[in-house]
């Protein structure tokens, strides 16, 4: 992304609504995006300049200049200029097309439409014209895509507005934003057009949860906070429309500020290649020096005397100077060891692999209709090297769909699929889902597989009825009924939505609510409960309750919450039931389901009166209101009766656990980095089998100070040390003192680490990061929760920095962009609403499970092929070039070439299209070149033709050596080709055919007649190749070159069949056995872990509902609406948000800690 930097750092931002002229003088970043680099005029010079910045190109330019010096030129200039021009052209064409597409996509993005209020009229304006200070209209389910907005007004009462921020922070629950009251009244365009308030606020920054500013309007000051902001990347939900004032646009938006810098990614093969090329270059210089010295000596000993027939060149007066010149001559000749085409060939191969990835049917998602896409073509072989995967949770591992999957009512568990095997396969053998047709209000999308639950409802099981009644009453869901019977629930967390929907389908339909009532259709009968109180959720309480009065007048408290909390608050007569339910809970938790325990309690009228009186008083207290309320809530939620438990499945993406298992088998470590809560994250960890109950221990780090975090990390490490000490004593000596030793990694037993954002911030400090990394890397699984986008990137950076391992980051939302950019390889999940992640990624596909194929199939193939290719490439060039070295000893080190110069020019060009699937062994090259030269030498030393003429003339020799070379290299490639497909046949035979065709063309009479000075080898091919001796020589050379290779490989294969493969194979077998063990134990295991709770929502909604603020006037009119005593609920909401940020870790210990904040 072309983030244009401001020259002067902005200190504060002044924005006046509807005043473009005023705002223009500040020159704020606009929404116009420009990522293209060239235009038609600048293309050629700029592109050439860029290309010659590459060392390789400059090097070849240098060679070209050398070749133009006649004393040095050992090869005519076109041997270099042809490939150089070819390379430059190909690159230029590629750059041009890239830039063309960039122009196109820029245009597309810039011209996206948005509704902008201009001089009192709403107009469809292209994106790029949206300026700071404009007022924009957004509609439901629309992405806030253009800018960070100040919410002015909305369709909902009180200027409320619901947003989903999954793109931004990965949290799945809905959040509420409110316009400040004065602007909330500006409902229509004419009013808004007159709005001329001025906002003075903080400069652009990357803090997603903070905003500070003031609105000046009509002589008044209004403070602004994050609560009034709609950030770019949010999705508007449950709100028909809203208006917003653009505060930050384009690169200044918080999202873009968070996205980190785009770095140029290089693969390790690139680096290897560069070092290799450097070494080879050094080698080349060495050879040049040797030959130059040889030349100087020769000229001194022989050349001086030979001057009668061959005088020295003009200007050459000493053997030493001649040697100096011949050094450069040899540099030119020998440059083919580092051929220019290497870089191009590598690019071509990578491009090919990218296409194979794009074409892969197995990475095509039919549901979303998106194929995989390799957006970067240069990283393919790195895929095979990945050691660490950093994954986002929401949308990547999970589908962000909650499904009511199981429940336990009165000691009876429902929801098991009536499948013989008991496992949930998505196959046809699955029975029909339960038929809810009896219920006209049922949600047709809801599916449940266990008919016995519905039967229990129909049979009138009171427990079951009470169970669903609770679900239909105890929640903060809002309902909307567009037409009769067409219910729409607006749930602020998907969990609650799932629960209420379940109750709805089983005949307990939550129909509507007012601040004081809840109307439920119980099995077709409308019953209105009086809502007396909502004891709201917060993450310390981990439960929520409602107190309702039934039409009969009975007051009952319904409560749902985390098992750890609720089970302690039950009446003691529940003991038996508790133990069965606990069993069920363990079972559910073992399957990775999110569980909730449901309970109720009947309240005496008198007690309630007293209690509510006290509640009222506490609520209006100005001091320690929270504590008072908490105490009161605590008091009433006691001695409850257990109803049962629910289990919600946070639907994983298809095949996630399997993929993770396989990736783990491949020794790839997977870290989950999520902005979501710890409980949710841990739960997902269990359901996708990253965490298992087999693990020796799951360390949870939730410290709030540096010391705490350090202590927790140290404890974790010590525990691991102790364990490994007992396993292998004496091996751990240097342990903590030595940095990042593999000691920790060799630890026996499986551990996992869970760390949350606060602690991570400390752990990432300079003096702790190594400690943290050591601990984390010793664990099999690492989960970081509540992390900000930048922290994600920091974690990746940390691993990159110290582990020197290849990292891959995968995510779907804008909050993953920074980590995607930081990792060696970034993968974006495509096919979803947001495209931020995809745009920043190197690869994109629509399902997490494709990662397996991408890494283990494509990555592996690319890597193997690239290695083979490089080896073969260097092999053939060494074989080719070293012949010159040996020839140097026989031609007075004069830098005479062995081959026809056309052969030199074409050797790499003809051959680069071919070796895509080839390989060879590096050092073989020299061996081959020796044979290649000395066998013909031996044969030709005294040979004569069959017509008596001499055979050992230079041209015949050249043809013989060249032909043997081509044949040997072809045989070698054939030998190395594992798979002979039609394409291989085509290229191998094709290149041989091409060689002979070109040979005969070059040596033809007609070419000689046209350019006698250029094509001197006239008639040579026909003459030479007609000699049996020549063919005997070629055959001999081929056999001698190939024979040892074959023998060696055969021995290797026969005696040590693919050592690495065997090891891998046995490892796999062993691990398979291990996992089987694990699975078996799974089945009959007694869970040690209680489930996390399933509330992924924010607190404050209960208050919101009771205040009636979020309800339409129409519904409010019906109720006797009495506003609660001056509780600025939004204030509470904001305050509580702070607490919630540090969701407690281990249920027992961390609860107190959170209170300290």
């Amino acid at each position: 992304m072309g983030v244009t930097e401001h020259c002067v750092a902005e200190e504060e931002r002044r924005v006046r609504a509807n005043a473009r002229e005023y705002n223009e003088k500040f020159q704020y970043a606009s929404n116009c995006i420009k990522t293209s680099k060239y235009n038609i005029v600048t293309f050629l010079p700029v592109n050439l300049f860029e290309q010659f910045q590459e060392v390789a190109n400059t090097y070849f330019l240098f060679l070209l200049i050398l070749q133009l010096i006649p004393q040095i030129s050992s090869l005519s200039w076109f041997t270099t200029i042809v490939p150089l021009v070819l390379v430059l052209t190909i690159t230029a064409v590629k750059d041009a097309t890239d830039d063309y597409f960039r122009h196109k996509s820029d245009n597309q993005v810039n011209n996206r439409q948005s509704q902008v209020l201009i001089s009192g009229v709403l107009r469809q304006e292209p994106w790029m014209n949206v300026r700071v200070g404009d007022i924009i209209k957004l509609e439901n389910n629309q992405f806030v895509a253009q800018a960070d907005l100040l919410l002015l007004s909305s369709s909902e009462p009180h200027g409320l507005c619901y947003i989903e921020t999954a793109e931004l922070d990965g949290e799945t629950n809905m959040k509420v934003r409110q316009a400040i009251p004065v602007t909330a009244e500006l409902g229509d365009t004419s009013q808004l057009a007159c709005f001329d308030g001025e906002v003075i606020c903080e400069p652009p920054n990357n803090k997603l949860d903070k905003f500070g500013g003031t609105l000046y309007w009509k002589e008044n000051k209004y403070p602004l906070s994050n609560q009034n902001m709609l950030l770019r990347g949010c999705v508007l939900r449950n709100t028909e429309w809203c208006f917003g004032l653009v505060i930050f646009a384009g690169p200044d938006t918080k999202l873009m500020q968070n996205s980190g810098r785009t770095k140029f990614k290089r693969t390790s093969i690139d680096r290897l290649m560069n070092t290799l090329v450097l070494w080879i270059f050094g080698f080349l210089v060495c050879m040049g020096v040797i030959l130059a010295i040889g030349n100087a000596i020769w000229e001194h000993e022989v050349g001086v005397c030979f001057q009668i027939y061959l005088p020295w060149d003009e200007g050459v007066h000493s053997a030493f100077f001649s040697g100096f010149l011949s050094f450069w001559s040899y540099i030119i000749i020998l440059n083919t060891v580092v051929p220019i085409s290497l870089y191009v060939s590598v690019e071509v191969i990578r491009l090919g692999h990218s296409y194979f990835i794009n074409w892969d049917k197995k990475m095509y998602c039919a549901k979303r209709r998106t194929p995989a896409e390799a957006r970067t073509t240069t990283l393919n072989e790195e895929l095979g090297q990945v050691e660490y995967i950093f994954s986002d949770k929401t949308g990547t591992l999970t589908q962000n769909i909650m499904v009511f999957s199981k429940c336990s009512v009165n000691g009876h568990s429902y929801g098991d699929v009536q499948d013989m095997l008991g496992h949930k396969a998505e196959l046809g053998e699955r029975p029909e889902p339960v038929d809810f047709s009896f219920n006209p209000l049922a949600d047709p999308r809801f599916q449940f597989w266990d008919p016995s639950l519905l039967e229990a409802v129909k049979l009138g099981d009171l427990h079951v009825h009470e169970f669903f009644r609770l679900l239909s009453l105890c929640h903060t869901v809002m309902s909307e009924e567009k037409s009769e019977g067409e219910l729409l629930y607006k749930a602020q967390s998907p969990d609650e939505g799932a629960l209420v929907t379940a109750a709805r389908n089983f005949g307990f339909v939550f129909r509507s609510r007012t601040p004081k009532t809840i109307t439920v259709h119980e099995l077709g009968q409308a019953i209105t409960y009086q809502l007396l109180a909502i004891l709201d959720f917060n993450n310390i309480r981990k439960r929520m309750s409602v107190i309702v009065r039934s039409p009969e007048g009975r007051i009952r408290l319904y409560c749902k919450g985390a098992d750890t909390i609720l089970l302690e608050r039950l009446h003691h007569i529940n003991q038996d039931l508790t133990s069965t339910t606990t069993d069920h809970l363990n079972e559910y938790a073992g399957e990775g389901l999110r569980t909730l325990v449901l309970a109720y309690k009947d309240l005496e009228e008198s007690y309630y009166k007293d209690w509510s009186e006290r509640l009222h008083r506490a609520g209006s207290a100005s001091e320690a209101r929270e504590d008072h309320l908490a105490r009161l809530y605590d008091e009433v939620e006691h001695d409850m009766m257990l109803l049962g438990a629910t289990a919600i499945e946070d639907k994983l993406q298809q095949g996630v656990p399997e993929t993770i298992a396989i990736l783990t088998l491949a020794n790839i470590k997977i870290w989950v980095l999520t902005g979501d809560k710890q409980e949710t994250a841990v739960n997902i960890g269990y359901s996708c089998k990253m965490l298992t109950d087999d693990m020796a221990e799951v360390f949870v780090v939730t410290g709030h100070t540096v010391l705490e975090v350090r202590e927790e990390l140290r404890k974790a490490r010590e525990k691991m040390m102790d364990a490994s000490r007992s396993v292998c004593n004496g091996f751990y000596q240097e342990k903590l003192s030595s940095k990042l030793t593999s000691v920790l990694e060799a630890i026996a037993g499986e551990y996992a680490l869970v760390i949350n954002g606060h602690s991570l911030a400390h752990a990432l400090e300079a003096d702790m990061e190594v400690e943290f990394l050591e601990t984390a890397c010793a664990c099999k699984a690492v989960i970081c929760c509540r992390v900000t986008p930048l922290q994600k990137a920091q974690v990746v950076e940390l691993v990159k920095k110290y582990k020197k391992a290849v990292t891959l980051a995968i995510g779907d939302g804008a909050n993953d962009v920074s980590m995607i950019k930081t990792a060696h390889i970034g993968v974006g999940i495509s096919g979803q609403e947001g495209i931020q992640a995809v745009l920043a990624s190197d690869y994109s596909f629509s399902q997490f499970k494709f990662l397996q194929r991408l890494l283990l199939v494509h990555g592996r193939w690319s890597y193997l092929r690239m290695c083979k290719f490089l080896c073969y490439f260097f092999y053939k060039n060494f074989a080719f070039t070293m012949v010159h070295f040996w020839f140097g000893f026989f031609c007075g080190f004069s830098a005479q070439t062995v081959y026809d110069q056309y052969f030199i020019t074409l050797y790499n060009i003809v051959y680069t299209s071919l070796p895509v699937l080839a390989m060879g062994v590096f050092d073989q090259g020299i061996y081959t070149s020796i044979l290649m030269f000395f066998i013909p030498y031996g044969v030709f030393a005294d040979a004569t033709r069959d017509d008596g003429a001499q055979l050992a003339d230079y041209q015949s020799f050249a043809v013989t050596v060249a032909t043997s070379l081509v044949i040997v290299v072809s045989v070698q490639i054939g030998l190395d080709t594992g798979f002979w497909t039609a394409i291989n046949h085509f290229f191998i035979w094709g290149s041989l055919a091409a060689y002979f065709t070109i040979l005969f063309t070059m040596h033809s009479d007609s070419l000689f007649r046209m350019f006698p000075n250029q094509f001197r080898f006239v008639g040579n091919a026909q003459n030479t190749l007609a000699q049996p001796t020549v063919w005997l020589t070629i055959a001999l050379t081929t056999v001698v070159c190939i024979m040892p290779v074959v023998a060696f490989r055969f021995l290797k294969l026969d005696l040590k069949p693919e050592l690495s493969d065997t090891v891998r194979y046995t490892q796999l077998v062993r691990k398979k056995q291990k996992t089987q063990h694990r699975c078996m134990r799974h089945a009959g295991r007694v869970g040690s872990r209680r489930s996390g709770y399933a509330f992924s929502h924010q607190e404050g909604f209960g208050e919101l509902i009771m205040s009636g603020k979020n309800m339409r006037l129409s519904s409010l009119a019906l109720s006797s609406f009495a506003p609660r005593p001056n509780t600025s609920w939004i204030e509470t909401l904001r305050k509580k948000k702070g607490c919630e940020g540090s969701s407690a870790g281990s249920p027992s210990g961390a609860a107190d800690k959170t209170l300290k904040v």
Partner: protein
Amino acid sequence: MAVNYSAKEEADGHPSGGVGVPGGGAVGGSGGGAVKTRKPDNTAFKQQRLPAWQPILTAGTVLPAFFIIGLIFIPIGIGIFVTSNNIREYEIDYTGTEPSSPCNKCLNVSWDSTPPCTCTINFTLEHSFESNVFMYYGLSNFYQNHRRYVKSRDDSQLNGDNSSLLNPSKECEPYRTNEDKPIAPCGAIANSMFNGTTKPVNWPKPVYMLDSEPDNNGFINEDFIVWMRTAALPTFRKLYRLIERKNNLQPTLQAGKYSLDIAYNYPVHSFDGRKRMILSTISWMGGKNPFLGIAYITVGSICFFLGVVLLFIHHKYGNRNTSADIPN
């Protein structure tokens, strides 16, 4: 790798639609028509499933190959060796470095010495030469393959191009012009033409007077052509004359005493060069060439021997479980 590949294909079966979306898979397919489907083509090439022949180096293929190569190479080698041995060849070094040589007096002769220094060498052929006899001159330590030497010629001039005759190529320097007159043939190669009698700077007479016969003169003079085909190695021989067999009854050259008259006017001593005269018969594979035959026999034997060794190793230590491992 081979087997992994196909196994993956089986195991990975195509995902059919998504969870909870019945017929989700069908949407992708049926959406065709007007909407361009983004689904990748299911072609063997794009899915990297091209039928492939996978050669594996097994005992069954490698060992026979070695034996066969051995069995082919040894007879060929023997054939070449025998043929080569049957060729008659006689070589005389007339450089005259040894004081006893009759040509010793001419050792330091210069190009333009007139009259030429002559010497006579007597030699005896112990065997008669039955078929056509080729007479070569040989030079050693003569760097016809030196880069500056090789390029010092003008092929368009030799091709008869008029402008090049008047203005020879720059490559010919310093033998391009002489006293502002172009040299033809120009360049170091032509200039240094080996000749018992030889007008470039070093030439005693112009190019059109190379031979008495008009058909064999100028640039198409055979001796000139032979010389202009530069040798690949510093030691080389070039064909000079052919002694044809007159009739079938008599050998071309009978065993006996001969004498070689040399007009010695090509100095080579300064750079340690040697001059030779070679008489040789030829066969189907050219002149005497013991190297090729020996090389073939050696390589053939090594192959055969390697075959035996590999067979032994294979039987003794060979991993017979290999095939059992691979299917997984």
